[in-house]
Structures are given as structure tokens and as C-alpha cells.
């Protein structure tokens, strides 16, 4: 019941937002137009990336066996598991919003929590195309120091968070 109500409110809020944008464009209300412009430019940015990301996730779910992921990224996997996901993160495009569904699929295929947190953290900080772009504006030295400092921090915090949640038998729900 509560959930239904929350959903209805959310839906109404979205409707109100849409109506506000429409009215702004019709009446030439410039803050509303600016918000609408922001909305569309970000939507296009994401629509360019998300379909590919989800298709690849779908293929991953169908073709990669659970035992394989468990063996390499699961509880019995060693330190090399972190290296694998950092490399995978390096090739991730987009941003955190792409990393979340990928991490989610990895988890449900048997990857352990600390590994998927490492993946999310690394996808935030060491995507290769982004780092190249960063270096061209901030200098190689900046990018180099940033990577060198951030990767260990992400690793340590992910392992800590993973173990902490694992001890409390934390499970990420399925169905998304």
C-alpha cells in the first residue's frame, strides 16, 4: 500500500515535471527552457551508451557460465580477481550509471562483494579514455599521481566494505 502510494506520487511528480517543461517552452519561460535543455542533452548522452551496455550485459548473462565467474571472481578467487575487474573497469564507457548494472550482473553470476565494489570504484576513476582526456588537460603527472594514489585506496576500501557486509551476511536483492 505504502509502496503503491509512493509510486503514484513519483509518477505524478514526473508528470508535473513534464508539464512544467512543456509550459516553459510554450510560454518562453527561460529557466524552464534551460532545465529542459539540460534534461535532453543528458538523456541523449545516456541513450547513446545505455543500449549497448545493456545488450552486452544480456550477452554476458547468457554466455558466461556462473561457475566461471565464481572461480575467477568469487569467494575462492585470489588477488588476481581484483586485477581482472580493474582492467574491465578501464574499458568501461560512460560513468557510474553504466558500472552499476554491470556490477550487479557480475554479483549475481557469483562475483564476491569486494570484487564488485572494486569494479565500481575503478570504473569511476580509471576508465582509460577518460584518463587520457584528463591527462591532456591536467598533465600526465596529475593523472599518474591520481591513479597511483586512488587505486590502492579503492582496493582497500572495497575489500573492507565487502568483508564487513559479507560477515553480516548481506545479500544484494535480485530482480533488476
Amino acid at each position, binding site marked *: 500500500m505504502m509502496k503503491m502510494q509512493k509510486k503514484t506520487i513519483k509518477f505524478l511528480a514526473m508528470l508535473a515535471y513534464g508539464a512544467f517543461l512543456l509550459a516553459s517552452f510554450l510560454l518562453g519561460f527561460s529557466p524552464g527552457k534551460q532545465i529542459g535543455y*539540460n534534461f535532453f542533452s543528458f538523456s541523449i548522452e545516456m541513450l547513446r551508451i545505455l543500449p*549497448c551496455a545493456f545488450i552486452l*550485459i544480456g550477452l554476458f548473462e547468457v554466455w558466461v557460465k556462473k561457475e566461471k565467474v565464481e572461480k575467477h571472481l568469487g569467494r575462492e578467487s585470489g588477488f588476481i580477481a581484483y586485477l581482472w575487474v580493474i582492467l574491465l573497469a578501464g574499458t568501461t564507457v560512460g560513468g557510474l550509471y553504466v558500472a552499476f548494472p554491470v556490477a550487479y550482473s557480475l554479483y549475481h553470476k557469483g562475483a564476491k562483494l569486494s570484487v564488485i565494489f572494486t569494479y565500481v570504484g575503478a570504473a569511476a576513476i580509471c576508465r582509460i579514455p577518460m584518463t587520457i582526456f584528463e591527462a591532456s588537460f591536467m598533465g600526465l603527472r596529475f593523472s599518474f599521481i591520481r591513479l597511483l594514489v586512488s587505486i590502492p585506496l579503492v582496493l582497500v576500501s572495497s575489500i573492507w566494505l565487502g568483508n564487513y557486509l559479507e560477515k553480516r551476511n548481506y545479500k544484494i536483492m535480485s530482480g533488476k
Partner: protein
Amino acid sequence: MYIATGLAVLISVILDRKKTLVALNIAWKKFIAILPAFLTMLILVSIVLFIVPDTMISQYLGNESRFTGIICASSFGSITLMPGFVAYPLCGILLKKGVSYMVLAAFTTTLMMVGILTYPVEKEYFGVKVTIIRNVVSFFIALLIALAIGFFFGEL
């Protein structure tokens, strides 16, 4: 990326048509399931970017002392969302204007790691608790990175 995805689908079709259809179906279902969360995020992004435009960010990062600069930079980085091709050129300009590396590191790192605006999406996948812990931890990591940058660039 389109080429890579296209190739992957093509190879999959050649290997097994049925499985590929299942994969595309999974992809579609997952996409639809998370779409409301993405929509919420986009709405928030559009409003926040209106309230906190780039010009305001440049102003605050440039004019303050180092300490306030870092606080402002990490707050802006946490609450906004910007693709790299917008953020780094902006930082490049600020750098030329004399903003310290440390402050810019605080800004870009929180921008990448901390996502208040991506919260609606993240909580759908990981739950509220993990999302909050991850973002708080990421915020402190970003501060540490900024300090390390400041140290190596002799700005501390």
C-alpha cells in the same frame, strides 16, 4: 562501442540464434526495469545543473582560499554530474586561471566517485545502505587523493 556491440551480437547469432534472442530479451527487460530510476536521475540532473551552473562552479573554485576551495570543490563534485568532456576542459581553464591542482583534484574525483544524483539508480541495484556507505567512503577517498595531489605538487 557500437562496433564492438554489433560484433558481439553477430558472433552470438552465428553461435546460437536462440541464446542471442534470450540475451536481447534480458537486455530489454533489465533496461525497462531500471528506466524509472534513470528518469528520476535525469530530472534531478536537469534541475541541479540549472541551480549550479558551470560559471558558478568556476567562481567558487577560483576565489576562495585553499581550504574553502577544497570544501567547495568536493561539494560541487558530489552534487553535480558532468561528462568528462565537459569537466576536464573546464578544469583546464581553471588551471590556467591559477586554481590549484589540489582543488581541481577534489572536484574531478568527487565528480567521478561520489554520485548524489546517481543515488536513485544506485539504490535500485545495491540497496540504500550500501549506496550511502559507498558514497561516504568515496568522498573521503577523494579528499585523500586531493591531499596527495597537493603534496606532490607542493601546494600544501
